[in-house]
């Protein structure tokens, strides 16, 4: 039967002669055979299988919403270096710059430049205040600036002159004397400047918040154990408790463009972090800006830090370590601001393999009561681990000042030598808006 249906071989050329011409105008639909893509196995005990598992994990994290992203990134606990922003280690700022890929630029960005041209020739109405009050902040009138000066003097006098405090216990002096002053200063200034900065009335002022950040940078070869000889990424965690911070609903504008950071120099330290000295622990990996994820005020504005007694410049001078005071302040500003901006970026969904598309900007003021240091941080990249950092030209930037004296001393119920530049900088910092 099958033989009958088959056409004879000799016939097929001529018979039927014109049958194929009907189909001459249409092309035969040639179907390409589709095979599944050739990818490495998922469950084999091989390096390519491990690579595929890692790729799938990365894709899974990229595809999930932000809170799941955070929990997937911080899920597995391993030994990590705990980075303390306020550290006794020597030359800590160079090490921290290497860990966070930050370049330090002395001085503040152009927005905060203390220009003598800003001094207006307009005579002041209140001539009772000491000279030097001719400086103005753009957007803030002279009267308001004079009000702020008097507010600051009132705060200083309240804590150091009017209030009678007992002799502080060992290492409690800053907490007892300067803590309340800083808190009053921050709340008072925020309230006074609320009419000049439309973001401040909608902002959130936290007192003693928690800021945490977890990241990976660099790798090392495991020296001993069942995983000996394999590469292990070095993990870091910052757990910071600033004195107070202001969080706002909109993001601050960038200080410089992303491309401008390509030329910055980051110091490279070839030694392992534990030589700093830095210690490893294993506990929960936290990423926290100061408020939970659904909070509308998710962007950072300014942080205020207090220098504890242990790192006070008088104590450092007694131990002949006066050069480490500035180092300590820089390291504190760097670590705290990196943790805060990094956590803000994570809250927006950017992480190691999805780098930030816009720079995240925050400010910080570190003080020990008399000396104020101002820092501005711009986070340009979160991709710090080995795979993502290989071709990443972006660097984070930290601008910072030396410590400036706010007032000389308090004598007979009056503040002697109030520095207007410092007050002006404080006002400029708080008035900073997009």
């Amino acid at each position: 039967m099958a033989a009958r249906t088959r056409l004879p071989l000799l016939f097929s050329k001529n018979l039927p002669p014109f049958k194929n011409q009907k189909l001459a105008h249409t092309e035969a639909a040639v179907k390409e055979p589709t095979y599944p893509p050739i990818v490495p196995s998922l469950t084999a005990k091989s390096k390519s299988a491990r690579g595929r598992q890692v790729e799938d994990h990365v894709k899974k994290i990229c595809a999930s919403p932000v809170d799941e992203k955070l929990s997937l990134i911080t899920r597995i606990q391993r030994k990590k270096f705990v980075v303390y922003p306020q550290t006794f280690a020597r030359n800590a700022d160079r090490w921290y710059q290497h860990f966070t890929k930050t370049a330090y630029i002395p001085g503040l960005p152009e927005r905060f430049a203390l220009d003598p041209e800003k001094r207006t020739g307009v005579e002041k109405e209140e001539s009772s205040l000491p000279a030097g009050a001719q400086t103005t902040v753009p957007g803030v009138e002279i009267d308001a600036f004079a009000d702020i000066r008097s507010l600051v003097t009132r705060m200083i006098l309240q804590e150091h002159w009017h209030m009678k405090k007992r002799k502080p216990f060992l290492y409690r002096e800053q907490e007892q004397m300067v803590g309340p002053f800083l808190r009053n200063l921050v709340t008072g200034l925020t309230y006074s400047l609320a009419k000049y900065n439309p973001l401040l009335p909608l902002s959130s002022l936290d007192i003693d918040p928690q800021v945490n950040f977890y990241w990976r940078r660099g790798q090392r070869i495991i020296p001993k154990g069942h995983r000996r000889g394999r590469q292990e990424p070095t993990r870091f965690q910052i757990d910071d408790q600033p004195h107070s911070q202001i969080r706002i609903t909109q993001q601050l504008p960038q200080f410089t463009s992303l491309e401008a950071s390509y030329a910055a120099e980051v110091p490279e330290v070839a030694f392992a972090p534990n030589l700093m000295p830095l210690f490893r622990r294993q506990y929960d990996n936290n990423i926290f800006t100061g408020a939970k994820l659904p909070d509308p005020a998710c962007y950072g504005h300014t942080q205020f830090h207090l220098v504890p007694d242990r790192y006070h410049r008088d104590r450092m001078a007694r131990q002949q370590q006066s050069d480490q005071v500035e180092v300590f302040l820089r390291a504190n500003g760097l670590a705290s601001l990196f943790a805060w901006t990094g956590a803000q970026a994570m809250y927006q969904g950017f992480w190691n393999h999805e780098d930030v598309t816009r720079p995240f900007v925050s400010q910080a003021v570190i003080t020990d009561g008399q000396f104020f240091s101002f820092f501005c941080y711009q986070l340009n990249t979160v991709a710090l681990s080995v795979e993502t950092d290989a071709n990443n030209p972006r660097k984070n930037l930290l601008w910072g000042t030396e410590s400036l004296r706010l007032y000389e001393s308090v004598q007979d119920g009056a503040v002697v030598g109030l520095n207007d530049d410092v007050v002006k900088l404080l006002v400029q910092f708080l008035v900073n808006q997009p």
Partner: protein
Amino acid sequence: MPVTRLLYPLFQLGNPQLRIFRPNWFLTLVRPGKEQPPDTVQFRIPMEMTKCDVKNYLEKIYNVPVGAVRTRIQFGSNKKRNHLNQKVKQPDYKVAYVQLAQGQTFTFPDIFPEKERMPTEGSMEEMQEKFMEDEKQRQKLDPRRGGVTEWFGL
């Protein structure tokens, strides 16, 4: 100070300032086993010294500006056994890592540098070296044949 049976001078509030003249402590500068940052110097110190003692010692006697000192005690192993199967204890020692102040750095020098040994003329060593070189030359295969052995050929 600590000879035998001498209690370490403990300090209590109100005691006079402790002054040690001619201390009986000796520090040993050692090459670090693991790579250390350039401002860190590693010493082996007697067990009884503390961090403050090390700092004062280096500053007062040697005028070395010391930033920070960290110490640890290295346990000497008690595992090895001698020919009588008794455990032999290696002594414990204290190690101090001293970080120098004022931006100074220190690298441990190379104490045993490699030097070119040229044997003196007419001596036994020179004759022996020449003989060894000649032997090696004879062992080498013919360079005209590209180092191929003699027996390889048609």
